[in-house]
C-alpha cells in the first residue's frame, strides 16, 4: 500500500471540493500517521462477530428491573429482546380476593412514584360502576386533583432527573430529588405516608387536607419552581445533553399510536391526546392549563414535554387551592363510606355498618366498566368486572408504560449501546406498573 512518506506533514487544502482523497476523506482532515493508518485500514477489513449481551435485570444504569438481551455488532444494536415481568406480583390475582377498599394499597404500588394518581384512577372506576360519580362532594374532587397533580410533578421529576443521572448529570439529579422531596413532604402531610399513600376512598378521600396545607403548598411550589428553573439552566443548552437526546430514540406519531402510547410519550410525537382535556373528568374543566406537545418524538421531545407539564401541573394546583370549596370530603352514603369513628364506638348501627364494610366490603352491583384517567405515564385504565359481591370478579389495570416499553425494541434496534440508557430512561418504564 502506498503510504505517504513519514515526513509529510498533514496537508490543509485550499480548495476542499477538489481534494477528496481515495478513502473519501475531505482534505483538511488530519491524516493518521502511517503506522496507525496501517491499523485503521486493517481494522476495516477485519471480520466482526456478532455478540449477545445482557443488560439488566439489575444494571446500574437501568432504573427499572428489566432485562434487555442485545445482539450487537461492535457498538451498534442489531436486535434486542426486552424482557419484563421481574416485578410481577399478581396484582390482579390478589385484587380478586380483596375488598374494593383493600385494593387501594395494591394500586399504590403500581406506579409507585405517583401513587395518588393510581388511587384516583381506581376509585373513579369503582364509582363509575356504583353510579355515584356525580355525587362525589366537590371538595373531594378538588383534593383529588390537587394531590394527583402534585404526584404528577413528582413522577415527571423522577423520570427526568433519573435519566439525567444516568447521563452523568448528577447535580440535576440531586436538585430534582430535592424538589421531589418537597412534593412528598406535602403528600406525607396529607396522607401520613411518604410514598404509599392509600389516601383515596371509594366516594371521596380518607380525610380533609391539613389546616396549613394551603400556605405550605405555596411555599413548597415556589421552591420546586426554583429548582426546575435551575435544572433547566443546567441542561437545556448543555451540549452533551443535547447530543445524547436530540434525534435519539425517535418514533413517528403513527407508530406511537399503534403501540398504544399515551401521556407525555405520545404528546412528544405531536399528538395532543390528554384524558384531562379530551375527556375531562373530576373537576378538570374548571382549570386553565395547557397541554404541551412536541413534534420530534425523540428523547429530547419527551424531556421537554415532561418538564413543561411540571409547570402546568403546578398551575392546576394553584388554581385548585383558590377555587376549592368547603364541605364534606366523602360521599354521604352509609353503603359506600365508612361511618365516622364516633358512631362506630357509640352506636350499634355504626358498629354494624363498620363491621360489614370491613368484613364484606361495599357491594358493587353486577356489571363491568372501563374507567380511564391521565396517570403519570399516560392513560391509566381500570377495567373492573363486578359480580355483585364485595370483591371484584376481575380488576384489570391498563398500565400505560407496559405499552410504551413494548416499543423499546423498535427504538433501540439500530442505535448504539450507549443510547439504550437515555432511550429507556425517557420512556419512564415503572416496573411496578409494567409488571403488576
Amino acid at each position: 500500500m502506498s503510504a505517504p512518506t513519514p515526513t509529510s506533514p498533514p496537508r490543509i487544502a485550499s480548495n476542499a471540493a477538489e481534494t477528496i482523497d481515495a478513502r473519501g476523506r475531505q482534505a483538511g482532515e488530519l491524516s493518521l500517521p502511517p503506522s496507525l493508518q496501517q491499523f485503521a485500514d486493517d481494522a476495516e477489513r477485519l471480520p466482526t462477530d456478532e455478540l449477545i449481551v445482557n443488560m439488566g435485570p439489575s444494571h446500574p444504569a437501568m432504573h427499572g428491573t428489566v432485562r434487555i438481551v442485545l445482539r450487537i455488532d461492535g457498538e451498534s444494536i442489531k436486535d434486542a429482546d426486552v424482557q419484563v415481568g421481574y416485578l410481577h406480583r399478581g396484582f390482579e390475582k390478589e385484587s380478586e380476593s380483596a375488598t374494593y377498599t383493600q385494593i387501594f394499597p395494591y394500586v399504590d404500588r403500581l406506579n409507585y412514584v405517583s401513587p395518588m394518581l393510581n388511587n384516583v384512577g381506581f376509585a373513579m372506576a369503582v364509582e363509575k360502576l356504583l353510579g355515584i360519580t356525580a355525587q362525589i362532594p366537590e371538595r373531594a374532587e378538588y383534593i383529588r386533583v390537587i394531590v394527583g397533580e402534585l404526584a404528577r410533578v413528582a413522577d415527571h421529576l423522577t423520570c427526568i432527573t433519573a435519566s439525567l443521572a444516568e447521563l452523568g448529570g448528577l447535580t440535576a439529579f440531586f436538585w430534582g430529588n430535592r424538589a421531589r422531596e418537597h412534593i412528598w413532604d406535602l403528600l406525607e402531610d396529607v396522607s401520613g405516608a411518604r410514598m404509599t399513600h392509600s389516601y383515596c376512598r371509594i366516594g371521596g378521600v380518607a380525610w380533609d387536607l391539613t389546616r396549613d396545607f394551603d400556605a405550605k403548598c405555596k411555599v413548597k411550589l415556589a421552591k420546586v419552581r426554583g429548582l426546575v428553573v435551575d435544572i433547566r439552566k443546567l441542561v437545556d443548552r448543555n451540549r452533551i445533553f443535547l447530543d445524547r437526546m436530540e434525534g435519539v430514540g425517535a418514533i413517528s406519531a403513527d407508530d406511537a399510536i399503534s403501540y398504544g402510547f399515551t401521556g407525555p410519550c405520545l404528546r412528544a410525537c405531536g399528538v395532543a391526546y390528554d384524558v384531562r382535556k379530551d375527556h375531562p373528568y373530576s373537576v378538570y374543566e374548571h382549570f386553565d392549563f395547557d397541554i404541551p406537545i412536541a413534534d420530534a418524538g425523540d428523547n429530547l421531545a419527551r424531556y421537554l414535554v415532561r418538564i413543561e407539564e411540571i409547570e402546568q401541573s403546578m398551575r392546576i394546583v394553584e388554581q385548585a387551592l383558590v377555587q376549592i370549596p368547603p364541605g364534606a370530603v366523602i360521599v354521604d352514603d352509609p353503603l359506600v363510606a365508612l361511618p365516622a369513628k364516633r358512631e362506630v364506638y357509640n352506636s350499634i348501627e355504626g358498629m354494624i355498618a363498620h363491621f360489614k364494610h370491613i368484613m364484606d366490603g361495599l357491594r358493587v352491583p353486577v356489571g363491568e366498566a372501563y374507567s380511564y384517567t391521565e396517570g403519570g405515564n399516560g392513560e391509566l385504565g381500570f377495567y373492573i368486572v363486578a359480580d355483585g359481591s364485595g370483591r371484584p370478579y376481575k380488576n384489570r389495570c391498563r398500565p400505560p408504560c407496559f405499552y410504551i416499553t413494548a416499543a423499546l425494541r423498535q427504538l433501540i434496534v439500530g442505535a448504539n449501546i450507549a443510547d439504550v440508557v437515555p432511550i429507556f430512561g425517557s420512556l419512564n418504564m415503572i416496573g411496578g406498573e409494567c409488571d403488576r
Partner: protein
Amino acid sequence: MAARLLEFLTRERPAALVETGAHVGDEIAVVHREHLVEVLTLLRDHAETKMNMLSDLTVVDYLGQQPRFEVVYQLYSIPRKHRLRIKVRIGDDDGECWVPTATGLWHSANWSEREAWDLYGVRFEGHPDLRRILMYEEFVGHPLRKDYPQNGRQPLIRRPDAPATDDQTTRLLADSHDRRVS
C-alpha cells in the same frame, strides 16, 4: 357518540355480531370469532370509526360457564375521540381456546396478547412471538385462570423437559429476523 358506533356495526356487519349493549356508559359489542379480524379491521380503517389505538386487551375467565373465556378489546380513536369494547367468547377446550391475532392491525397487540396467553392460556393464532411475558418460561399453568389457586407457589426450578428462558432467548436472537408488524 359511541352509540353511533354500535349502529354503525349493526349496519355494516350484522352477521358478525352476537349481541350489542351498553353498561354505565360503555358500549360493548360481542362478535363471532370468525368475524373478529374483519370487524377490527373495519373499525380501524373506516373513515367513520378510525379506531387507531388498541388501548387494552385482556381476558375474563367465567369459570363454570360456557363459553368460558371472554377476550376483551378496548378500542379508542384519537381523531374521533370515541371508545368501543369488542368481546369474543371462546371455550376452554384445547381446540377452542384461541382467537386470531390482532398483531397485524396494531403494534400494541403484540405484548398484550403475549400477556393474555401467559396469564390466561388463550392462544392467539398467527402471533409472531407467543412467549410468556410476565411469568417465567418454566412456569406451569396460567395464573389468572379462576381454577389456579391464589396461594399457588411455583419455585423457580428448571424442569428438565422445559426450555430455559436463556436458551430460548439466545436461539431467538441468533436466528432473528424482523418481527415487527408492518
